[in-house]
């Protein structure tokens, strides 16, 4: 998890394009300036960053489902529930499913667990567009490779 780059997941550990599900892992860093302010002497992973972590995981699923032909942009978060605190050093298991692939949008459901216990969940909507340009798409492919996205999800996979 690179909080300073807003890249919140470390790797994609499961991807099933038939069932349209994904699972990623993300280790909350032990130190970050974020924890100095949130909160002084009582560091907690901000809930909005947990939501973003779910959104990034679900977003990679949309990208994979379109074989890197389309880019999802966060549009709506519904029924977000933050069930328990997340602290520095914890390993997040982030799961998402593609509930519906519409024309220009996608509906997903995502959740995070720590040690098998539910931490948070949300329904996340994306607007889905063509990549604005080829360079952006190439950068996303590079990022996907760093996350070890399975080869079958890649544009030339």
């Amino acid at each position: 998890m690179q909080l300073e780059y807003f890249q919140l997941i470390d790797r994609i550990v499961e991807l099933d394009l038939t069932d349209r599900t994904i699972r990623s892992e993300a280790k909350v860093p032990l130190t970050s300036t974020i924890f100095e302010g949130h909160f002084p002497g009582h560091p907690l992973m901000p809930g909005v960053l947990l939501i973003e972590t779910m959104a990034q995981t679900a977003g990679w699923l949309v990208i994979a489902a379109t074989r890197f032909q389309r880019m999802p942009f966060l549009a709506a978060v519904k029924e977000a529930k933050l069930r328990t605190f997340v602290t520095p050093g914890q390993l997040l298991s982030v799961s998402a499913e593609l509930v519906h692939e519409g024309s220009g949008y996608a509906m997903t459901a995502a959740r995070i667990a720590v040690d098998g216990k539910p931490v948070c969940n949300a329904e996340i909507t994306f607007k889905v567009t063509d990549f604005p340009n080829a360079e952006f798409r190439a950068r996303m492919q590079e990022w996907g490779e760093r996350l070890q996205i399975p080869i079958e999800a890649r544009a030339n996979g």
Partner: protein
Amino acid sequence: MSSTFDTVANIIAETCDIPRENIKPESHAIDDLGIDSLDFLDIAFAIDKAFAIKLPLEKWTQEVNDGAATTEQYFVLKNLCARIDDLVAAKGAVST
């Protein structure tokens, strides 16, 4: 069995918290009912599910942006329902 319009009107009423009695076949989803593009995604999702179709929102939006169609053709509810009926019929034709 309820009509396409009744199903769509009920979806809009529930999704956008608009009184059902205000939703007429002549209502323009955007101009009369004040539904924006983000709220329309929820409506499209519910319509896709209810009718087992995929509303071609991107194609419609592109046509409107290109001046090849008007918003009335797709977003006046009686016209939207006619498009839904066409999509349902086309789906049935493919599957038989």
